[in-house]
Each structure stands twice: as C-alpha cells, then as structure tokens.
C-alpha cells in the first residue's frame, strides 16, 4: 500500500508533528538548519569566497554552510562555482573554496576505485597501535556529551542538536575519538553518518580514515592551544575543563602513541 503524504504545513512545528506521527518517533527535535532550495539560496547569496580562504579554519569563519544542500542534491556544485565566478575578479582569489568543493569529487573518485575503503582500513595505522587495539563501540560519555573535555562536549552537542559541525571541529572530534579514546574510526564514522545532515559516506568515512592515519601518512592530532586559536568565546577552552588536551604536542605524541615514534 502506498499513501500520498501532505506537503502543505503552517510552519516547521506542524511538519515536525506530522513527521513524528509517521515515524512513531519520540525524539522530535529538529535542526535549526532549514531544508530546501530557498534556504540554500540564502546561504549561496551570503557566500564570501575570498574570505573563506583566510578564515575557513576558524569556527566563526566565513564558511558557506552549503554542505547539507550540496550533499543532498539541493544544489549542484557547478552552480556554486558559477556563483563564485560571478563574485571574484580572479578565480585564484577563491581557490581554497573551489578546492573544498573538489574534495567531494575526490572522495567519490576514491570510493569508486576502492569501495571497500568505505568501511575497511585503507592502510595500516601509523600510530604504533594495531587495528585490534581500538575499541568497537563508542564510549557512553561521548554519546552523552559528558567527556572530561568541555570543548569536545560542545562539539558533540552541535552534532546531536543541529546535525552540523564545522569541518575543523569534525577533525577535533574524530581525533579525540580515535586517538585520545582509541576507538575504531569506523565507529566514529557511523556515529557522524547517523547525525550529520550532510553525511556522505565517501567524504565522511575517508576523512575519518585520514585522521586515523589509515588513509594518510600520519595521525592527525590537536591540542587545546589549537582549539583556543580557532574558536570563539562560546567554546570553553580553559585548561581545567579540558585537561587531556591541555598539553604540548610533544607530550601528547608520547602519551597517545607510546609504541612508536611518530612525526606529528
């Protein structure tokens, strides 16, 4: 049996209730990020290609927030490129943003050639640990956003509450899960796919492998100083509330990868 579903709603709240009834869902929370072409076009109009290159690593930087719409086929990447061309004198001014759009094609290319890499290690870990040394399940305190790192808890809340996390914060979360908590990258990749509005397995999973070092030359790690540099006042980066991260790279490397000298 098939049933035609409604398309006219007074507001998001009415749609939320309607959808919750269809899915018998008890968690009716929705993202503040609006779906649809109209919302996407607002983001497109606000895009700042030149500033993107200079500020993209900062959580308050001029990123486009187009990823959910690109990932879900609301807008074609070529439309974004055309808009960039209209807004810069020279495409070199927007090279970082064009590269970012190209990453998705790259991940698709890799997944097309090596589909098994979506869920299997592409290469061995370069951390001094074996794959079997990593846990198969996500620790409860991470799922509950109750870790002993305040900044990490905020990033987890963003993932769970909005379905969106800034790319740099995704790297922090991935590195925290894999290297600080020694959990398999696959567990983290699945966790992200279950929540991200822009969850695209090739981009998501191969990026997790990049952080893990199973698809890169070395593991990606970060420390509290790096988080402090790239975040604003809304993120708690006080050392007392982020003790595992409040260390130098030399100390972290020794602690996280004691079995192998790693050039991080």
């Amino acid at each position, binding site marked *: *049996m*098939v*049933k*035609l*579903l409604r*398309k006219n*709603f007074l507001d998001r709240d009415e*749609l*939320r209730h309607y*959808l*919750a009834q*269809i*899915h018998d*869902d008890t*968690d*009716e*929370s*929705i*993202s503040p*990020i*609006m*779906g*649809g*072409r*109209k919302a996407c076009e607002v983001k497109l109009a606000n895009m700042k290609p030149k500033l993107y290159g200079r500020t993209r690593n900062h959580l308050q930087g001029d990123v486009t927030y187009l990823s*959910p719409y690109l*990932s*879900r*086929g*609301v*807008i*074609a*990447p*070529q439309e974004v*490129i055309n808009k960039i061309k209209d807004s810069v004198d020279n*495409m*070199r001014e927007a*090279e970082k943003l*064009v*590269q970012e*759009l*190209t*990453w*998705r*094609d*790259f991940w*698709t*290319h*890799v997944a*097309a050639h*090596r589909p098994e890499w979506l869920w299997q290690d592409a290469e061995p870990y370069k951390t001094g640990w074996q794959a079997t040394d990593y846990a198969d399940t996500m620790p409860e305190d991470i799922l509950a956003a109750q870790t002993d790192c305040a900044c990490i808890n905020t990033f987890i809340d963003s993932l769970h509450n*909005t*379905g969106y996390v800034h790319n740099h914060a995704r790297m922090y979360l991935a590195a925290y899960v894999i290297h600080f908590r020694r959990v398999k990258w696959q567990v983290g990749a*699945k966790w992200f*796919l*279950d*929540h991200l*509005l822009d*969850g*695209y397995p090739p981009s998501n999973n191969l990026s997790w492998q990049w952080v893990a070092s199973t698809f890169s030359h070395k593991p990606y790690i970060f420390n509290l100083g790096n988080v402090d540099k790239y975040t604003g006042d809304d993120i708690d980066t006080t050392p007392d509330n982020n003790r595992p991260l409040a260390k130098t790279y030399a100390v972290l490397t020794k602690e996280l990868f004691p079995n192998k000298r790693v050039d991080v």
Partner: protein
Amino acid sequence: MSAVLFIDEDHLNPRLLLNKIDEQCLVIFPWDKSYFESRSYSFKQLFFFYESLLDEDVNIYLGELETVVNSFRKDEQTSFYMPMSLINRLSNEFLSTTKVTSVDLAALTEQPDHFCNRFFQYWREVKKQVMS
C-alpha cells in the same frame, strides 16, 4: 506514454535531474520507512529531507520503494527514471521485469582515468577544469 522520475534523499532537487531527461516527468519521492530505519537516519535528518521536498514539485508517497514504483506502472510504455543510488536498492528480480533508466547529478570534475589516492594529486589533474 508516461514518464516518472523517482528521487531519493541524495537528490532532493529534481530540477537538477529533469534537465537531463527528454520528456515530461511526474516526480515521486518514495518515503520508505524501513529503508530509512536501515540507514539509522535521525529525526533531524528525515525532517531536513522532507522540508527540502516542500520547495519542489514532488509528490511524496509513503511505502516501500518497489511498491511505490509499481504503483506508477500504468502500462508497458511507462518510462522509469531514477539515480543509481535508488536503482541499487531495487532487487534483481524487480530489475529483470522493469526497465529503469539511470539519471544522475553531474560531478564537478571529469574523473581522471587513473587512480589518485591523495587529494593534491587529484587536484593537479582537475584544477584547470574547475578554475577556468
């Protein structure tokens, strides 16, 4: 003769696909609960999909994919279009009796003919295409 385009959660704007089809199409989104459950989509994700469809000339039908597709089979001449991501969800049995034409979003870059396993290797290959 009738034509139907089926879309999924990775192709929420049918206009990006319709411009590749040389006939008028009815557009259908099969809202397949069991599939969504198999993907463990959160309510937030489902809401984003549905809300996106409100901006488009798409009919949303609740039901399993093959059941929804079958319900639009008017006669032997019905043309079915869908992206590969949907075709891959159809059973071989279904595909053996139903002709489905794939239609997909254009990639930004033409894929190099050899495998690049690092991004900057790939970037060197495609930079001219996207930067010019």
